[in-house]
């Protein structure tokens, strides 16, 4: 396993929410797979603490952005599958545009044009 503690970035509560929503955009899946997906897609930089994953999933379900049901996994075992709801889709779009604006703002300050940059 590629676990590099120093390069792991801590995830704040709000960021985990939007990552889960984005993961589910591709299709319904269960909790374990969501965590693995985030880890893989971020090239191992983002490691999801299982201790925060399930409470986050519960919270999102309470808000009505994801819905859940028990299904049989591809291994034949019972697992709880989560999927995005239309409201969740809207929330994802909102959050995503907020993040893009945020990172653009950060970029503008950290790499200012017109100043001597590296």
């Amino acid at each position, binding site marked *: 396993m590629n676990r590099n503690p120093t390069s792991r970035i801590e995830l704040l509560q709000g960021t985990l929410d939007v990552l889960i929503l984005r993961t589910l955009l591709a299709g319904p899946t269960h909790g374990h797979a969501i965590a693995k997906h985030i880890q893989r897609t971020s090239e191992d930089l983002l490691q999801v603490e299982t201790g925060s994953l399930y409470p986050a999933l519960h919270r999102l379900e309470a808000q009505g952005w994801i819905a859940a049901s028990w299904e049989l996994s591809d291994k034949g*075992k019972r697992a709880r599958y989560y999927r995005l709801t239309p409201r969740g889709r809207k929330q994802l779009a909102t959050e995503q545009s907020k993040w893009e604006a945020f990172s653009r703002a950060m970029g503008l300050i950290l790499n200012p044009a017109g100043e001597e940059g590296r």
Partner: protein
Amino acid sequence: MRWSRYFRRAKWDRERLEEIESHLEIETGENVASGMEHHQARAAARRDLGNASLIREAIYDMNTISFLGTLGRDLRHGLRALRRDPVFAVVALLTLAIGIGANTAVFSVVNSVLLKPLRYPKAEELVALRQVAPGAAGLASFAEGLRLSPSMYFTYGEHNRAFQSLGVWITGTANVTGLAEPEQVRTVDVSDGVLPALLVPPAIGRWLSAADQDPRGPERVMLSYGYWQRRFGGDPSAIGRNIRVDSRPREIVGVMPQGFRIVNADFDLIMPLAFDRGKLILAGFGFQGIARLKPGVGIQQADADVARMIPVWMDSWSNGPGTNPHFYETWKITPVIRPLKQEVVGSVSDVLWVVMGTIGLVMLIACANVTNLLLVRAEARQHELALRAAIGAGRARIMGSLLVESLLLSLMGGVLGVALAYGGQRLLLAIGPGNLPRLNEISIDPRTLAFTVLLSMLTGLLLGLIPALKYSGPKIAIALRGAGRTSGVSRERHRARNLLVVAQVAMALVLLVGAGLMIRTFQAMRTVDPGFTDARRLQTMRISIPDSLVAEPERVTRIQNEIVDKLAAMPGVSAVGFANEMPMEGFESAWDAIYAQDKTYSDGEIPPLRLYKNISPGSLRAAGTRIIAGRELTWQEVYSQRPVVLISDNLARELWGAPSAALGKRIREFEGMPWWEVIGVVQDVRENGVQAKAPETVYWPTMMKDLYGPGSLGAVRSVTIVARSQRAATEAFLKEIQQAVWSVNANLPVASVRTMEDIYDASLARTSFTLVMLGIAGAMALVLGIIGIYGMISYAVSQRTSEIGIRLALGAQQTQLRRMFVRSGLILAGIGVLIGLPAAIALMRLMKSLLFGISALDPITYAAVPMILVVAAVLASYLPARRAASVDPVDALKAE
């Protein structure tokens, strides 16, 4: 959504467990796939997961509504605590249940009688047309103000601008024959406009209409629901049938719904007044007026409207040729219209509010007792509370849980209290004034229950607040160190409890002073000479001979005479007579002015109005009314129509200075009437109850010329017969009376059979009721106060056991110790008395309207009550003081 998750938290938790398990399985599977051995894989997966319990707890917490969670915990905790201390629980619950129950019972009466609107549609538009005539001297001795005459009804009805509908009514009785045995029923006679004003539709049939008021038209009648059920079995075909009322057939046109009353009057029949307009004069002021205001019209406007119509009335009618209609201007007739509800409730509101106040005070005293109990408990639980504070409970949490406990206690007490209230309500109605208005409407309705809940919650908060404030504070260290085993006890701890006991004593003093004043009032009332003697052995009954049964007045009198003779012949009867009414019966006697022949009156001067009564020979003797000078009438004088009268003592003194001087003088009703000679002077009689002064009275015979206006001979047809006998009120006696009356005329029902004592007691009902209520409240307050002081001293003794031991060891005498504790009890009571006296003085002023013969500052009461309390305090502290004195010093010091 939150709520559904809340109630299925357990299920969610199980699912989470399953979900975490499946997560572990998948992770383990992956680990195995990447080459680990099975249990190593599982261990790695476990490590990766972290703390499963934490995850489950986090989610469980998200599903909880924390407020409900703590509430549930506190409630369970509180119930457990109560079960552990059953004696406390029972005492506190009972005290609270009695307090809340009594208050609920009284409130239900106050609510139904005073607060609820009347049961007529849009009852706020209904008013009673009252009038006063301050210029008519003497009128103030009688009833309330000036009633309406029929001519006034026509004038007001036709010329008003303020009312939608208007009418007059009067209560009466009538004889119904032909159905079962002859029965005297209660009637309300109404003019047109009364039923439309009240707007209550009939249960079946229709209202009396304007056509039914035609004196020459067909005679109609309406029934009450109760009468319809009783006599017709609720048969709808009663409509259209005839019944014989006062020997005349009347057609039934409708039945009013159940519970319907005309203002306060309960009735069996409604009859039309059917005034003959052509024969009306200005006078005849005997009817009550009722009206419904037009929307948007206020009482002041209505008053102005009626005032405008009074001159119109004087112009439209006359009292006969040669009379001046405008003489009524001297009477200064003024309308004082008031809402119908006030009319219904009358003066009973004073009594009810006093009762409510006293029961409220008793509740406060009971609360003080329970608070003291809670304080003792909290003191004993200091250790537990301090521990909770030490492991992290905030002050608010501890206070919250203490408040929940006291709320639980008081709500449980409230539930018990409602059950007690049902019983209490019955008791109240049984001992209450029999003529309590709206009696049929009293019930425990939702508003009363809301009151109970509110009262319980307020009580709970109040009770819990003091212990909560005292014992949730940051004195943990002291408590944990080991429950205060210092040789002296912190004085501050006792301050709250002392204050409570002092407050109890003060409130008990107020109640006992109130009860004392009522006792003295009652005594004063009973010593007033009412004008008759030995009321218990004076049997009364009412008999009414309508003119449709016997037309000639003289025959009416002879029939009455015959009845009286038959009664006098019965064994055990010592005297019989009859009169138009007996004192305090409440039927309205007539009144008019009296002119004396030997006095001069200036032009247009009207002398003051006097009460006119009609009596038979022998009635004064039968009633035990003293004849101060002269003699009674004789039958011979009555039949020969000799113009002789008796007058009352106060009238004799007013006109001629002394009773003996009145004999032989002549008086008459007004100009043109013959002069009547005064042959006797009668003692003053309290016609309107012992609280009112005796009116100046003229006693006419029951058969006389000009009885109902100049010209014809008339006889009083509705009379009260009085018979003095040792056997009064026994069943056999009453049967014999019935037989005697029917042997004279089988069509005469005997009604209102009661003794003079019943009538007298009924007139005192308001006072005796208040007395009983205050007496009960005062007794409860005294008992609670004694318990309070006893508890306080007891507690002090148990707390100071070691100190007592030391004192005894150092040589203190037992009597010294006893005295010490009795003294502390006396000090508490003394301070309570000192605080209570000014409070009592201030509050008793509110009761002034209920007192008679004594002032609100009656010295005897104010001296006696503190003495009673002091004695009670000594008694209450003596027992624990004795216990203190019998403490074994060795045992006491051993516990150190």
